[in-house]
């Protein structure tokens, strides 16, 4: 018997992203995540889909974003697909968590650019494969495998 899998495709519209996040949340709940963990999944999927729409599709709404969620024995995997402009994997995967620090003495915190850092902070891994169909893979270990919260 294969691993449970959930798939949802939306139009590339920012006001449709909540549907993907809600699906990811439901799948995560069925896999055993709860409370803050579900909020974190919802946030990460939202950030991922927002990035695809804003940057891969440059804000155009005529395309689609697909989310495939696969529940494995020890983790839950979120694959987000778009067919827009590819990012460089090295840039996507570079550790950006320092961007969440507030730089002193500047003009104040930047208003954007935190999405990847948030995903890196809240997920156990982030991988990006560029191609005709870009894939961002976010993985979160499940509690029974020893995820520290």
């Amino acid at each position, binding site marked *: 018997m294969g691993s449970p899998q959930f798939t949802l495709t939306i139009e590339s519209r920012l006001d449709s992203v909540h549907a993907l996040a809600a699906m990811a949340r439901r799948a995560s709940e069925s896999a055993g995540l709860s409370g803050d963990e579900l909020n974190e999944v919802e946030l990460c999927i939202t950030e991922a889909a927002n990035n695809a729409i804003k940057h891969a599709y440059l804000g155009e709404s005529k395309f689609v974003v697909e989310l495939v969620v696969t529940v494995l024995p020890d983790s839950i995997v979120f694959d987000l697909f778009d067919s827009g402009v590819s990012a460089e994997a090295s840039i996507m995967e570079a550790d950006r968590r320092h961007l969440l620090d507030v730089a002193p003495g500047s003009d104040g915190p930047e*208003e954007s650019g935190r999405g990847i850092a948030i995903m890196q902070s809240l997920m156990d891994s982030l991988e990006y494969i560029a191609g005709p169909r870009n894939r961002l893979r976010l993985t979160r270990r499940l509690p029974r495998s020893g995820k520290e919260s």
Partner: protein
Amino acid sequence: MKFEESRQGGCIIIRLLETRLGADKAASFKDVMAAYTHSDCKAVVLDISRVEFIDSSGLGAILSVLKQMQHGCELIIAGATDPVASMFKLTRMDRVFLMYKTAADATERIP
């Protein structure tokens, strides 16, 4: 963007009536708040007690408003729910904004 405005002492209280402040609402949020950034008041209290979800775009929109506030008028965040407060903490924005548990707490502290 649904909101309510009220005034108390030297404060303007803006209560968001949305449950989500995400990328799709960021622009309309900034449009609404632009009317208050040059207000003749001591503080604008942004009551987000109904907001259950915020993403980095929503947070960026609040930061944008903060940067536009007229000198002498503070932007105060009130009523952050647990998921929203977690987002402020994760992004260190709890160090940038004045935050109170309720709008009443905020207005009590503004002379």
